[in-house]
């Protein structure tokens, strides 16, 4: 019997699906999950001008999304502890495939494709042992799981690929959770987050840990500039009487550099960075704090604090033509450029934690 699923699998095997490009979708500039006015959840593509160019329903609240570098396919993860992820054709809204976490695993909601789009790497929790795992999926074989390796720590969250190198960088947040106890954090006094670099077969290239006094600073989100310098954003699990740095700069082979605003501004972040992005020219870094309602901008070359902007429930941030675009859980999309923060009209969508820019602006201009 041909079920819908085997039919779709057959299509994928014959290479029917990859004939569309992102251009066929009206050149979205970024993609994000959101809650819609009727209370349902959706995946939306938005142009640089802030226009919605596509909208596809999601069954539940999403977390991060991963964009296929060539085709208008999006991996939409269920929220933690998600056990499956959908591969969605943004053009038709069809499910192209479903990724099921193996038994004893759940997804953390982040992933990254190899540059050619052939393989997808996902961060996962092997929750009986609390080992972080990277799952490998073959997009050309209907997202069949083809392998896995250890992430080098507990609670791997974001994952990125260094430019021009087959090196993965992984934010091992350090926090142990188990689906039976929901989001309860099981090891805060013992947690040891790290930043781990692995080759594509899981071989460790480098691993850094912060100073022991910062062991409760969970390394969660990443961005990488064209030179391969890694920006990592952190969430503090320690005492609220301290205001640790929430942004780090790291280059392979060197010591990390931590960046913070002056104390009186740093405390406004509520010890929480929800997302991080580097500008396209690599000159600036932005971190957002939905808990503090702040965006902090840093000079990425000088590694110094530049400025702070106020925006309620801001979390999503992505590089734009002129600087950064940010999104909020209250429906606002705003642009940050040399003139400052310019909020557009409030959209009816409650934007989720992360906005994802198209992998390469050039891919928007035809195949």
């Amino acid at each position, binding site marked *: 019997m041909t079920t819908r699923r085997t039919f779709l699998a057959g299509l994928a095997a014959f290479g029917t699906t990859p004939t569309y490009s992102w251009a066929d979708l009206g050149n979205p500039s970024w993609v994000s999950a959101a809650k819609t006015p009727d209370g349902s959840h959706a995946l939306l593509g938005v142009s640089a001008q802030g226009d919605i160019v596509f909208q596809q329903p999601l069954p539940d609240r999403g977390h991060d999304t991963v964009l296929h570098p060539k085709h208008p396919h999006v991996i939409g993860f269920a*929220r933690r502890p998600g056990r499956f992820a959908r591969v969605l054709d943004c053009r038709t809204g069809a499910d192209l495939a479903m990724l099921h976490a193996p038994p004893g695993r759940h997804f953390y909601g982040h992933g990254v494709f190899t540059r050619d789009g052939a393989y997808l790497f996902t961060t996962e929790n092997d929750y009986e042992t609390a080992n972080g795992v990277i799952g490998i999926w073959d997009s050309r074989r209907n997202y069949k799981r083809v392998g896995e390796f250890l992430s080098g720590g507990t609670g791997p969250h974001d994952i990125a690929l260094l430019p021009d190198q087959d090196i993965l960088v992984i934010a091992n947040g350090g926090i142990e959770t188990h689906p*039976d106890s929901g*989001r309860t954090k099981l090891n805060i006094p*013992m947690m040891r987050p790290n930043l781990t670099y692995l080759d594509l077969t899981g071989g460790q290239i480098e691993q850094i840990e912060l100073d022991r006094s910062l062991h409760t600073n969970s390394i969660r989100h990443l961005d990488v500039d064209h030179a391969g310098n890694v920006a990592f954003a952190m969430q503090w699990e320690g005492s609220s009487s301290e205001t640790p740095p929430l942004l780090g700069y790291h280059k392979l082979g060197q010591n990390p550099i931590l960046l913070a605003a002056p104390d009186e501004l740093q405390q406004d972040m509520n010890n929480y960075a*929800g997302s991080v992005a580097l500008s396209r020219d690599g000159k600036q870094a932005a971190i957002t704090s939905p808990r503090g309602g702040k965006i902090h901008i840093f000079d990425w070359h000088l590694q110094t604090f530049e400025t702070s902007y106020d925006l309620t429930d801001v979390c999503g941030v992505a590089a734009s033509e002129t600087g950064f675009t940010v999104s909020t859980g209250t429906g606002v999309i705003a642009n940050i450029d040399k003139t400052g923060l310019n909020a557009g009209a409030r959209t009816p969508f*409650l934007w989720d*934690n992360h906005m994802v820019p198209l992998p390469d602006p050039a891919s928007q201009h035809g195949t």
Partner: protein
Amino acid sequence: MLRSITLLATALLSLSTLSLRAQDAPVLQDVIDNHILPRFAAIDNTGAELQKAAQANCAPNDPALRTAYHNAFDAWISASHIRFGPAEDEQRGYAMGFWPDPKGFTTKSLAGLITDEDPIVFDAQEYTEVSIAARGFYALEALLFDEWINAQGTAEYRCALIRAVATDIAGNAHALNADWTGPYVAKFGTLGADQMHENEESAVQVLLNALVTGYQFTEEARLGRPLGTFDRPRPKRAEAQRSERSLRNVALSLASLTDLAQRLSEGHPELQTVFTDGLERADIRMADLSPTFAEVEDISGRLKVEILQQETARLREAANTTLATFWGVAVGFNALDGD
């Protein structure tokens, strides 16, 4: 000028400032005076009693020692949702109660001390340097109730270890109470532009966060861990099951949290009813459960624990939405998500 006068007044006349504040922030004042401070006074008192009992008789099955253990543990569970402020300093909250402990660090750390006959137990100040897993109520529970631990090493060393853990609990409890009644209460309770909290709403937001997190911990950890999954219930993972405190801790936490919720709903009976009714429904369910949730292993028993978990979730939801909206401090779509 005005600011320095305010600071002087705060420093010199903290008692009259407390009463002055009450006019502006009656709910905050009530929570501090009648919810928070009595709870930390209770852990201080019961902690001291525990230390005394351990000094008097350190036999693990000594009835007076076990009673003192239960009394102090009761006091801690009723205060443990106040995790901001003094409980964050030096990880005191975790040092009082390190649980859940999926990797069994408590048993391993204690067994390590016993096997090595580590002399650290003979110095109270030094003992604060041991692994957090070997401190607090769950470590003391293992020493008093765990058969395997009580078969390790010598009775003399285990006695010294029991006294060290009890002394450490008492010291921690006293430090928490001293900080709350001393410098921290003035910081937390004084409102103003240059203060920790600009207005009552901002302080209430911290209390609401503690309330929601408290309900969530009982729902997800205290009830979620023994429930496990339908195919694999995990009764041995129930909190403090060796001393048969699993249900008792749930009952104490729900009562204490609901006391806070009612104070935050003061003057609004329709809000207070949401919480008192919710607690009453939970109490009815709890009357029918065993002390250690052993019933999670059979289908009808499991269902009863699941219903209690749902009642707890409803209380959490009421705090998170109804009460937060009432105070105008509803947490944002992304701020709440925390990922």
